[in-house]
């Protein structure tokens, strides 16, 4: 049945899956942080990812700032946009049901994408790879840039996980997730911490956008195409589970890649089949814990 499958094809798709998984992991990580720690279903995450790619493109085209500069500047800019959005749109909704923030962020998606489409059109815009060339691995040609994306996103994911699980700041965030009023009674400015957490999660989306710009075409709809997968990753991993988002992101990327080898017709469906099975067997997600599931 699988006679046509060569080891080259298998390893090649595995690597492509790992590259896609890097994006899934980084974006779902931001989404999980935002939901897990401040309980906002951030539907605008894809649009903020798109914004990161556009900021990188604009920095290059208008200010001559190359990719390596954009890698630091764009997440800060997008994080600042996120902070503004949190202060003006989400903060007044903080004490209401999650549905209200979901609807508000969905409206923000339509506005952001509409404005970008108006300014830049719907066609994708190219962004030159900062690391041209690559290496022949025998079973496939690996462009240097894609290798960089895998390594860098892994570093970002591990660093973020360590920040939340192993530092005092992370302890504040986890405690505030359980009992914000008690953490505030310790003298910690929890509302400000919540706002900055949202900005940090949004900054991660912006960083993902910068990483994606040289691989995918920079277009207003690039985030929407990815969002449904990212939400599936977060649901499978466990809503709000940081580790779950990271591991599931890579897992889903690899499963998607392997499905393309064994049954290409189902490659787009595989994620959602996994999501349904995961929801039936573990409704709180594969990696949920009592404190990360609500």
């Amino acid at each position, binding site marked *: 049945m699988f006679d046509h499958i060569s080891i080259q094809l298998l390893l090649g798709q595995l690597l492509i899956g790992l590259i896609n998984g890097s994006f899934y992991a980084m974006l779902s990580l931001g989404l999980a942080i935002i939901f897990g720690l401040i309980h906002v279903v951030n539907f605008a995450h894809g649009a903020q990812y798109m914004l990161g790619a556009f900021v990188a493109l604009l920095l290059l085209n208008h200010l001559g700032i190359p990719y390596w500069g954009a890698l630091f500047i764009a997440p800060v800019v997008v994080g600042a946009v996120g902070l503004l959005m949190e202060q003006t749109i989400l903060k007044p909704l903080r004490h209401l049901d999650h549905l209200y923030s979901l609807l508000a962020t969905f409206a923000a998606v339509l506005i952001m994408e509409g404005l970008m489409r108006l300014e830049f059109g719907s066609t994708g815009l190219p962004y030159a790879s900062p690391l041209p060339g690559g290496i022949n691995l025998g079973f496939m040609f690996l462009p240097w840039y894609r290798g960089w994306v895998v390594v860098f996103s892994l570093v970002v994911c591990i660093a973020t996980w360590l920040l939340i699980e192993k530092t005092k700041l992370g*302890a*504040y965030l986890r405690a505030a997730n*359980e009992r914000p009023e*008690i953490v*505030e*009674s*310790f*003298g910690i400015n929890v509302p400000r911490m919540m706002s900055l957490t949202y900005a940090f999660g949004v900054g991660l989306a912006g960083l993902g956008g910068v990483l994606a710009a040289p691989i995918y075409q920079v277009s207003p709809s690039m985030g929407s195409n990815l969002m449904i997968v990212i939400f599936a990753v977060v649901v499978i991993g466990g809503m709000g589970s940081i580790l779950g988002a990271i591991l599931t992101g890579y897992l889903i990327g690899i499963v998607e890649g392997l499905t393309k080898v064994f049954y290409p017709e189902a490659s787009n469906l595989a994620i959602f089949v996994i999501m349904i099975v995961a929801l039936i067997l573990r409704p709180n997600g594969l990696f949920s814990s009592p404190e990360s599931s609500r």
Partner: protein
Amino acid sequence: MSDALLNVQNLEAWYGESKALHGMNFDVRPGELVTLIGRNGAGKSTTLRSIMGIVGKRTGSIRFDGQELINRRTFQIARTGIAYCPEERAIFSSLNVAENLTLPPVLKAGGIADDALLRQFPNLQRRLKSQGTKLSGGEQQMLAIARILRTGARFLLLDEPSEGLAPVVVKEIGEQIKALKTQGFTILLVEQNLSFARKVADRHVVVENGVVVDTLTNSELEADMARVKTYLGV
């Protein structure tokens, strides 16, 4: 009263549309241990939550150490030198004992150092790596009290520390609270356990339906237990 560390005047508080305090008036002097006693739902815990700013809305006046707190936010109130230990202890399940203990930041000089806290609460020393909520009720109460002592706050709001604990543990908690008083802490204690309250307190403020209906010194309470039991419905 001019020498009061905490002076509460005409304090009213709401949870949503529901009014819980109807004009509380009382004070606490430096170094005193004052209990708020009364029936369930009288407004004792709400009074502590109102002092900390953890209620929907509050009016009136709460003066602490010369500063008006009524319009301040919870974290700002904490920074004036007040620490709060809630009724349900609020031990964080996502943190281990050591993380729970060291979570509150040092806000003022004069807080108890971590190693001194562990000497004062030796049970915690053995369980530092355990999940906070895996401790026994008594140990959780010790942890909840211990962690607020590191902030440097000298005024403690303790909400029913004896609740749900075995008599031997209640006795141990009582000893710890007495020790805190000896160390110079001023304490406002919510307590329904009258025998516990009379052993540790200087004065008792009786709360009924969100107002103060009586104030007794410990000796007055001993002399007129019948009156107090009427208030408490026991």
